[in-house]
């Protein structure tokens, strides 16, 4: 066996099958100290499985896995951890204990170690947590409850805790999924310093701009096999071709026909201290609402969907005052929303694809309270076909679907109704690029009879999907641009609050463009 002596981890012909279907085949991979290796692949390409084999959640069943010159086969994450390999999984939130303080969550791994001291000493916990945070130059409110932190800060807590284990190989699965650009930058700073300390980092992300920023090289998986390796600077189009097997046509360009005004907001003020703003949304048009995390995008959507009352200002829907008091009232009035967090806000454990899809519009599929199952099935089958949802039948459990297909179901649910305004909060989160294209195309294709508001933190997503882009900062819509002719750099500058010379920023009324 010919293995490079300096590699921390090497795999040769590594394979893993579930039942009869091979998920990974013939993976040859070397990870060296002090490098960031991006792992690319569409959903289902085998990324997660590879990560789970490396991190000990799955044992491999073909080929070899070498860690620092020793052949291993992990049977538990604990073993992998002892060998110095630690993974931070996509849903980092699951690693936190609600109700515990930030400090307690930071030292949780040590608290849970066997052979620790019997007594829990709050002072020592504080000191140790402060030390972990200081090592990474993180400023966190250690005394505060973990529940009071935003999702970005929670992500950082999980990461800090993982790093306290001093791993030699760190696997990050979609670490920026819930981070804004500036927070992601903070994470990249952390990754840079880890790289200098000689940690090997495997980095999985759907955000190609992240990968271009951080990766020393990229490895592409397709259908469970290695499909290519790309050195930095990352050749994004070539990597996409390797990932998808074909290059993607861009989404349809050109301005959509702007129809009648559907929703108008005047002097809308979200909080007592934020600036009032005006905006309007038109039929047939897809508007993206973008801005940093915590800028107030979701809050605007919540006002429209009856989850929050504005501090001041008026809203009109089709010329009538719009003051929904609950999601139920909003839906009855024709305003639909697919909220940000799929599993928290949209999915019901144990509900099948069909049940998940029809939940908001059960009334349409029932007579005298009794469900008309044929009508329900027909409507679901139609959405499944239109959205290109890949599934083994309409009654499959939602958690057997990939993220992209789950998101399609959530979108399809609201396409069942004839809404006036459809709000989609982060519809591309945790969705691979092909599904993202398909979802975007479906949103645009179905947009004719309603106004559509798509919230996305990622400026590239906003540029891809929208006819018009609104920028939110400090709980206020501060700028609006028609898509044609808008430059990415200008948009990013506006999002970040740096006034670019090529733009004249208007504070009021911009959205009526």
């Amino acid at each position, binding site marked *: 066996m010919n293995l490079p002596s300096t590699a921390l981890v090497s795999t040769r012909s590594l394979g893993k099958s579930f039942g009869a279907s091979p998920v990974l085949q013939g993976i040859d991979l070397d990870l060296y100290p002090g490098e960031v290796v991006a792992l690319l692949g569409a959903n289902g390409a085998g990324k997660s499985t590879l990560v789970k084999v490396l991190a000990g959640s799955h044992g491999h069943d073909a080929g070899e896995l070498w860690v620092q010159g020793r052949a291993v086969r992990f049977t538990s994450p604990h073993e992998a951890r002892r060998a110095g390999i630690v993974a931070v999984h996509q849903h980092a939130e699951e690693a936190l204990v609600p109700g515990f303080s930030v400090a307690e969550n930071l030292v949780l791994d040590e608290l849970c170690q066997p052979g620790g001291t019997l007594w829990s000493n709050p002072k020592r916990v504080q000191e140790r947590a402060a030390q972990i945070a200081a090592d990474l130059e993180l400023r966190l409110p250690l005394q505060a409850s973990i529940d009071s932190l935003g999702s970005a800060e929670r992500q950082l807590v999980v990461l800090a805790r993982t790093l306290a284990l001093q791993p030699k190989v760190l696997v990050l699965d979609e670490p920026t999924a819930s981070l804004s650009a500036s927070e992601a930058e903070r994470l990249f700073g952390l990754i840079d310093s880890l790289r200098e300390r000689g940690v090997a980092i495997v980095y999985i992300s759907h955000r190609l701009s992240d990968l271009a920023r951080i990766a020393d090289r990229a490895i592409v998986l397709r259908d469970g096999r290695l499909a290519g390796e790309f050195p930095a600077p990352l050749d994004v189009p070539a990597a996409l071709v390797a990932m998808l097997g074909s290059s993607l046509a861009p989404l349809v360009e050109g301005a959509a026909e702007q129809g009648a005004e559907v929703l108008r907001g005047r002097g809308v003020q979200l909080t007592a201290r934020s600036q009032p703003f005006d905006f309007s949304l038109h039929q047939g048009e897809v508007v993206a609402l973008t801005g940093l995390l915590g800028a107030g995008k979701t809050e605007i959507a919540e006002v429209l969907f009856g989850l929050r009352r504005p501090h001041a200002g008026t809203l009109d829907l089709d010329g009538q005052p719009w003051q929904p008091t609950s999601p*139920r009232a909003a839906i009855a009035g024709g305003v639909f929303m697919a909220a940000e967090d799929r599993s928290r*806000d949209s999915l019901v454990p144990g509900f099948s694809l069909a049940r998940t899809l029809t939940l908001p519009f059960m009334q349409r599929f029932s007579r005298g309270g009794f469900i008309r199952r044929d009508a329900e099935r027909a409507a679901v089958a139609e959405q499944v076909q239109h959205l290109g949802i890949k599934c083994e039948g309409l009654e499959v459990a939602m958690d057997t679907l990939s993220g992209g297909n789950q998101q399609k179901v959530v979108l399809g649910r609201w396409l069942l109704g004839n809404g006036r305004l459809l709000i989609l909060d982060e519809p591309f989160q945790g969705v691979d690029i092909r599904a993202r294209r398909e979802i975007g195309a479906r949103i645009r294709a179905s947009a004719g009879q309603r106004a559509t508001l798509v919230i996305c933190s990622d400026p590239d997503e906003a540029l891809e999907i929208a006819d018009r882009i609104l920028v939110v900062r400090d709980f206020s819509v501060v700028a609006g641009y028609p898509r044609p002719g808008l430059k990415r750099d200008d948009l990013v500058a506006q999002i970040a609050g740096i006034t670019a010379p090529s733009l004249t920023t208007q504070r009021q009324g911009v959205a009526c463009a």
Partner: protein
Amino acid sequence: MPESISSNPPATWLRLAIHYGLLLVLALVVVLFAVLEPAFLRVGNLFIILQSVSIVALLALGVTLTMAVGGLDLSIGAVAAMSLMCASYVMVVLGWGPLPAVLISLGCGALVGLLNGFLIVRMGVPDILATLGSMFLVIGLQLIPTGGRSIAVGMTLPNGDEAIGSFSSAFLALGRARLWDTVPVPVVVMAVIAVLVWAFLERTRFGRVLYAIGGNERAARLAGAPVQRYKFLAYVLSAVLASLGGLLLAARLGRGDVSSGNGLVLDALGAALIGFAVLGARKPNAFGTLVGALLVATLLNGLTMLNAPYYAQDFVKGTVLVLALMFTFGLAPKSR
């Protein structure tokens, strides 16, 4: 997606065993007892089993509804006992007819359901604690009108008079009559209610929404469900079904016995929980609840025929429940 396929798909026979496990156990138990004691299979005995289970089954069907919204109703036993005392009081002490007795009892049950709903939905008290509280409240409340004594025809009231009323034969027929000389009325009531609850949960949009609320309340609200109203509905229905159970018990006993509601709550909860394992449902469901109640009743009946001591009954129930819970949560295929 390959990544979400369980790493160890259970063998087909194991899946089948988990799916049909409890139904198989029920069949085996019946066959076993039939072999050991031929009298077990006599029609009369089978209806004795059904009759013995009918009241518990009503309560269990009610608690199934509250479990479907993700809650739990511990007050059902107390409500059944209250309903029994209430009906007895109205007929024996006040001397009113059976119809007012039934309506007042069901109405009082609905009030307790509203109280539970208020505590859980409006005050935000966790369901177990709220219904534990109302359980104590109701157990205490039903003792006050009679000064803590049971109600019997001709009893002496606290003021020294003799009670004027009696249980009418129409009311007693609710618990004692048999259709075609064979099928006890409580069994008919149980069957009708079971079909209604099953259809409500499985075939109406209301049931679908109840399950959605139980699975992910936030998702249900964001999909437009009036979550609070549905929760109130579930707790009121649960309490009304418990009241109905109490009425049947009163009709069977023919007296207002203060201690007779005890024990119903655990049996009912057990039946509903055993029901999780029936047909691999892993959720509260009407058919499973009925099978759970029947399984326990069949076991107890057969063991009694074989002269098993009465004090072993709770042990048997507990064993069945623990095994069923292991089936449901430990052995059923995990989705991930």
